[in-house]
């Protein structure tokens, strides 16, 4: 028992659907809902497992994490990763079961939570440190280190509202990274700041992980998890499906992603929780310029991504994010950033097309995440809506390297050699 940091037993968390679904309620709504009875609940349709109007975000989860282990939590949106972290950091209470947590817990849940714009950088370091559970003496002892890490020495006495977003994010991360809890919970926070700062953050996390602290990471960036964790726990619909060395868990996750992309997208339950659902993503595919096979394209030739949706709404916009198999983002195509070549076609029906000329990707496997907007609202979002393979081809008259190339993209270029 002495070496166990976290032990959960039959841990479960359920949410009542309806009122809590989006935002908050008013008394009137809750009165109306009660009056409408089950009809009101039907309107509150949500996509995960239903049990009456209860959603189980986490179910019967039993997990033991030893002291000093660095564990990555992997899973789709809504698989229960964040809920588990929230229970462990005591923000929400479990509905069933229990978790025994040994030692002080620190959470890096979202960088910058608790910063007050009117306070100066110095004041915010103390406030934010206290919020994260640091004692005043502790913050004072590490103050210089924090400020140096964030690289904001000159602006210490400037109110944070005058900081650039990069500066405040760096400061926030610096405070959080200098926490010294026995157990550290990290939720998708490493992707902040510029590239140099990201590398620095990653290095800091590595240091933390190697210092024998117990760390639980949640990230969609599988490469980061692979680099930092030994053990991977794959969650699906609130349950543990794989608990193995991190590479195995990632493989198993990638398999579930592909399986999900292969099926009917309307049956997917891991949709973006912000979506308004007036129009849903029905099918996503990518084809080579002249038709050809679905989901196989050739480098250097035109490729067309087609997103079929259930309903064509006014002001529809779409964002495609292409990732490699490790979850590293490669490129984002966003219709909201418009160009003269874009156009709206009333005849097109409930579908969106995006053409990429001279596809500049290295041969390999990629996935597309889709975010759908309409009526100025997020309507739907799906990660890994489609997987595709890029076959070797010719980009700007040059054949793509067959093997041994680093990176994901091919640039059109020209050499001058002696």
């Amino acid at each position, binding site marked *: 028992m002495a070496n166990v940091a976290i032990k959960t037993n039959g841990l479960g968390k359920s949410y009542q659907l309806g009122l809590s679904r989006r935002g908050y309620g008013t008394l009137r709504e809750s009165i109306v809902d009660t009056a409408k009875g089950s009809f009101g609940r039907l309107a509150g349709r949500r996509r995960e497992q239903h049990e009456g109007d209860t959603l189980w975000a986490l179910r019967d989860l039993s997990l033991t994490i030893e002291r000093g282990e660095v564990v990555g939590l992997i899973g789709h949106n809504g698989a229960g990763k964040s809920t588990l972290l929230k229970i462990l950091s005591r*923000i929400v209470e479990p509905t069933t079961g229990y978790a025994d947590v040994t030692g002080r817990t620190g959470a890096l849940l979202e960088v910058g939570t608790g910063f007050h714009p009117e306070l100066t950088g110095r004041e915010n370091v103390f406030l934010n440190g206290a919020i994260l*559970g640091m004692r005043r003496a502790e913050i004072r002892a590490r103050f210089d280190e924090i400020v140096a890490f964030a690289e904001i020495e000159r602006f210490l006495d400037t109110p944070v509202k005058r900081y650039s977003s990069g500066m405040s994010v760096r400061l926030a991360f610096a405070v959080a990274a200098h926490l010294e809890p026995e157990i550290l919970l990290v939720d998708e926070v490493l992707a902040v700041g510029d590239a140099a700062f990201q590398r620095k953050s990653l290095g800091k996390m590595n240091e933390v992980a190697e210092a024998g602290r117990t760390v639980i990471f949640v990230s969609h960036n599988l490469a980061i998890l692979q680099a930092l964790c030994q053990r991977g726990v794959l969650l699906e619909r609130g349950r543990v499906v794989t608990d193995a060395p991190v590479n195995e868990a990632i493989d198993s996750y990638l398999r579930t992603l592909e399986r999900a992309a292969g099926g009917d997208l309307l049956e997917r339950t891991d949709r973006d929780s912000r979506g308004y659902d007036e129009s849903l993503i029905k099918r996503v595919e990518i084809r080579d310029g002249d038709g050809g096979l679905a989901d196989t394209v050739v480098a250097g030739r035109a490729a067309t991504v087609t997103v079929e949706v259930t309903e064509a709404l006014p002001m529809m916009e779409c964002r495609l994010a292409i990732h490699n198999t490790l979850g590293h983002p490669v490129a984002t195509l966003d219709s909201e950033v418009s160009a003269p070549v874009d156009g709206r076609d009333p005849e097109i029906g409930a579908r969106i097309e995006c053409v990429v000329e001279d596809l500049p990707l290295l041969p390999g496997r990629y996935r597309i995440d889709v975010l759908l907007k309409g009526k100025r609202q997020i309507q739907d979002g799906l990660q890994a809506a489609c997987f595709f393979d890029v076959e070797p081809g010719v980009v700007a008259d040059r054949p793509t390297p067959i093997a041994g190339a680093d990176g994901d993209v091919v640039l059109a270029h020209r050499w001058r050699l002696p």
Partner: protein
Amino acid sequence: MNADAVSPHGEAVRPVPETTRLKPTSGFSRVLSPHELWRYRDLALQIAARDITVRYRQTALGAAWAILQPVGFMVVFSLFFGRVAGVSSDGLPYALFSLAALVPWTYFANSLLLGSESLVANSALVAKIYFPRIFMPAGVLAAGFVDLGVSLVILFAIVLIYGIVPTAAVLMLPLLVLIMVAAGLGVTAALSAVNVRYRDVRYVIPFAIQMWLFASPIAYPSSLISEPWRTLSAINPMVGVVEGFRWATLGTADAPWALIGVSAASALVLLVAGLAYFDRVERSFADYI
């Protein structure tokens, strides 16, 4: 276990960490747990300090607002209630009579206004970080002390200008403030908690504060009410506080002990009930905010 044994390289001999069991709870768990409150004492101080610092930052008049509000009311009340309507002021100059009541009232009203919004205004924190939530409304009550102190100083200056020398009754002020804080914390805790679920609170508060202002003997003396209703009216804790403040600062002869006694009891009930409600619903804040 606590953080006192931290070394720069994390290799200090730490005391054996304690194990916390996180499980579904019911009944009273957190608010009234002194252990939890003590563990997070630094945060409590930081939150109160933040509320004080932020309150008047980037305002032209700064802490002068602490006194402008009650003085403004005093002027208006003196004109309309004192002059025009000729409301009795128990033989005192009407301006003083109303100011001595407006000083505690302003603290109370502002605490209600800011305190009921305190959880919602900090929703990002509540949704993402654990700390004893009671610190949010309590921090507002604590931060208000600065304003209260400033306006008390001004009140005494004006009292002296009028040539009134306070009596030993001044020593009762801390007790009166305590009654006010107890009532304020009870009501604010409950309202801030309801606000998490039902934002209706936001619309009710300004209206309720106005009603409460006129239900308390601020513009008029409670002696206008006949017994036993007068004593009974002190179920509103501000009745005892306001009449007590007049007695303690203006040196009026009769100590309103009955009013203070009833108000103190009522404030205690409000405090216990408010905290009990807060404690019951605290665990679901993050789910609803």
